[in-house]
């Protein structure tokens, strides 16, 4: 008997969830159909001069009038999108290497050593997360572009991204290092291993999962970053993918929605897959501090 009422109740729940699913999926389908339409227009169908309800319905169904890959091939052959993707890859890759190195060494020190300034250092990292981007953006712009003349240069962006990702990564790695039993290190120390050897030979291999998550987090942060790249990279050839995608539809020139949609799919697909695989780790990283109290 209870089974029956449950099913009836579930029907309403399913209906509600279905509405939510449509709202969630619609923009994604929208990009897909603009991308595969082969044109640069926003509309899926040409409306007759005096459209009826059916014509209008056709115009909102996210299915293009023809399916073609041409936007995907054109965005690489006729637009410098390949170059932009390469820029993003270089910047995000170097940021990952740099960020993991900086965060793992600092995280290890905070986890294993008691030294004067430890608490202040960790709090400083935490507080720095509260600095609003624009407050440091103006000085950073002056330092990187005006003084160091690293505008439109990979190095400037890599330096910036590595340091912005550090605090989160340090806290996350410190938390993981804390869970590794200290006995392992003590026996190594007895055998005369130096701190550097212990870190390199024992801690790092044991922390592979955490390091991987940190690396992917750094990569995704750098890959998706928009404002700093917009500010620093002012030559078209040095755009990163986000700045380039906005260039297709944000400027005063003709808006190229087809290129934007195709490019977005290429740029977003890898990070979306990464995100869906990693979501549990990221969420636990975000809330770890809070749950501990």
């Amino acid at each position, binding site marked *: 008997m209870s089974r029956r009422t449950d099913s009836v109740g579930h029907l309403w*729940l*399913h209906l*509600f*969830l279905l509405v939510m*699913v449509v709202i*969630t999926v619609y*923009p*994604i389908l*929208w990009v897909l159909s603009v991308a595969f339409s082969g044109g640069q227009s*926003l*509309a*899926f169908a040409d409306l007759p001069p005096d459209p009826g309800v059916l014509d209008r*319905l056709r*115009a*909102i169904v996210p299915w293009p009038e023809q399916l073609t890959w041409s936007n995907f091939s054109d965005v690489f052959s006729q637009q410098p999108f390949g170059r932009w993707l390469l820029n993003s890859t270089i910047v995000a890759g170097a940021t990952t290497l740099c960020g993991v190195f900086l*965060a793992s060494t*600092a995280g290890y*020190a905070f986890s*294993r*050593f008691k*030294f004067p300034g430890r608490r202040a250092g960790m709090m400083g990292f935490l507080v*720095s997360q*509260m600095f*609003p*981007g*624009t*407050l*440091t*953006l*103006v*000085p*950073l*712009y*002056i*330092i990187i572009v*005006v003084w160091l003349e690293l505008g439109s240069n990979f190095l400037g962006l890599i*330096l*910036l991204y*590595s*340091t*912005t990702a550090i*605090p989160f990564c340090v806290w996350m790695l410190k938390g993981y290092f804390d869970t590794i039993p200290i006995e392992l290190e003590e026996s190594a120390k007895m055998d005369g291993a130096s701190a550097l050897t212990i870190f390199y030979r024992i801690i790092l291999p044991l922390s592979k999962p955490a390091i991987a998550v940190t690396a992917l987090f750094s990569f995704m942060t750098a890959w*998706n970053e*928009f*404002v700093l790249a917009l*500010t620093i990279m002012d030559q078209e050839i040095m755009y990163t993918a986000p700045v380039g*995608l*906005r260039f297709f539809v*944000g400027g005063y020139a003709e808006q190229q929605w087809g290129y*934007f949609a195709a490019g*977005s799919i290429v740029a*977003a697909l890898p990070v*979306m897959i990464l*995100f*869906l695989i990693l*979501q549990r780790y990221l969420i636990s990283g975000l*809330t770890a*501090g*809070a749950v501990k*109290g």
Partner: protein
Amino acid sequence: MALKTATGRQVLAGLLTGLVAGLLLTALVVDAGHRRLNGVAAQQRAVIATAAAAEALAAGGEDAQDLVERLVERIPDLEELRVVDVGSRSLSASTHATDREAGVPPRRLTRDEKSLYDQARELQAARRTNEQEAEARKNEVLAEVLPDGRLQLVVPVMEGDRVTGAVQAWCGGAPADRIGGPGFAPWLVAAVCIVVFLVVMRLVPSPRARVLVSLVILAAGLWFHADLAVDGLADHRVRLEEGLRDHAFALQEICAASLPGVGADPSAWDLDRYRQPRGRFDAAGELDLEVVRAGAAPTLRRFGQSAAVLSVIALVLQWWVAGGWATASWRALVKNRSAYGFVLPAMVGMVLLVFYPFTYGLAISFTGKTLYNVNEPLVDLFVGFENYVQILKDIDVFTTAEDGSRIINFQSFYWTLGFTILWTVSNVSIGVSLGLLLALILNTKGLALRPLYRIILILPWAVPNYITALIWKGMFHKQFGVINQIVQIFGGEPIAWFDAWGTSFAAVLMTNAWLSFPFMMVISLGALQSIPGDLYEAARVDGAGKFQQFRFITLPSLKPALVPAVILSVVWTFNMFNIIYLVSQGEPAGATEILITEAYKIAFEQYRYGYAAAYSVVIFMILLAYGIWQNRTTKATEGI
């Protein structure tokens, strides 16, 4: 207290450290000051020589090519000369070997030599502008240091009041004026300080008094040294001016020997960059010391400021060493060297690229820095709290127009603040309620397809938010956007979403709601799943209804996870730059600008760096206040 136990040796070490640091740093600055003065004088020397050449050319009367060759031969500063005539676009004369390869002057300029012509045109335009505005604003003398250290100058050739051409000169670095080095002054000061200190040590037994006296001695010594250095710089300046005068009169003799009438008044060649006479000396060769001193005043003042700052640094160092803190720090450093070694790389990065910019941003916020004075020292641009006052005084959000209707001043800080709060509160409430509702539904036992729903509903979180923003911007397009198509299915008129404040707000709100509910949903779902089922069992046994179970079991269990999530999402939304910047762009007329996008626009569209920095500091203060308040209230509730 470390000061009480400071030994005589420690105090002496402190004094020595202070002396070395203070004198060395000041000596470096003095040296830099001398170099700078020498550089300026070398450039002025070249200007005088080039101006002399320009006057000789303007006097004309003979073949220009002959003339430039003779000038280069006789005037030692001039290495190469090129003369360009604007009217005929030709190179009238040149001593440069490669120029002759393309044809013997006078001849038409080649394509490669266009920059020369452009420079002459630039001077012509500058002259015209300055004349029209009756104010010297544009440079009429172009000077540039070439990569090999030589100077390149461009001076107009005048015919009456008209610029007819330009002469470009390459001048070798002037014969190096002796810098003189720091001299014996630092040694003298150091010796006197040490002697005085040793005498005082005999008389004063108390360690604390000794430290204080040594501080006073160092301060006095450094002040005396800086005073000597300022005098030295001022004297050097006068010597340099004398050198320039002698140079000009030597040129006059050279010119008079071969070109009668040229250079009757050599002080006319001593031009500033607006081609106005600098007036440091007159036709009789008399130096005007008043003008020289007035010209030196800003440099000397800046030097005095630097010396003061350096002295404070030296005093702090001395205090640190004398009090024994230096030894303690050194011991801690050695003892924990591996720990510090591990932290160092990250710390250096953080200090250089996070903490230093933050401090520098604070400093900029008290200045009138803009794109146009970006390289000037901050001290010269200091405006005090003016930026803050300007931001905060704009209280009149509503003004009344002439016809009696109310106008909202969207540029007012308070409007933007109010809108940011509205934006944050509405987004977070939508996010929390929608996320919680979906989590409760997805947590229903026996609901089919739960994992599928979960993975689909989490998708918006995975899409990079700049892409989300641009997609929604496309969907809100007035003519072709799908949202207006849906509106029209229901018989409405197409809406220009970004033309009115209300619809623009609705658009950005929808966009942000779409991307932010999954976060809350996932957090709530995780918390819901961790509530043990026995709790509900026990409640049912006690006769609690569904609502009571929700109120007394579910909500309290959610709190530890939801509170930090809400705090996080408040901060995120408050600073949600991408959505506003990419979807509404603040339209209409800045009405949907949030604080962070407004600060960005002030910095990178109006180029008012100082004002933007002050704006950002205000944002930081608001977030800080929120953080402290939130921390206090959550702590308070945790205690219950």
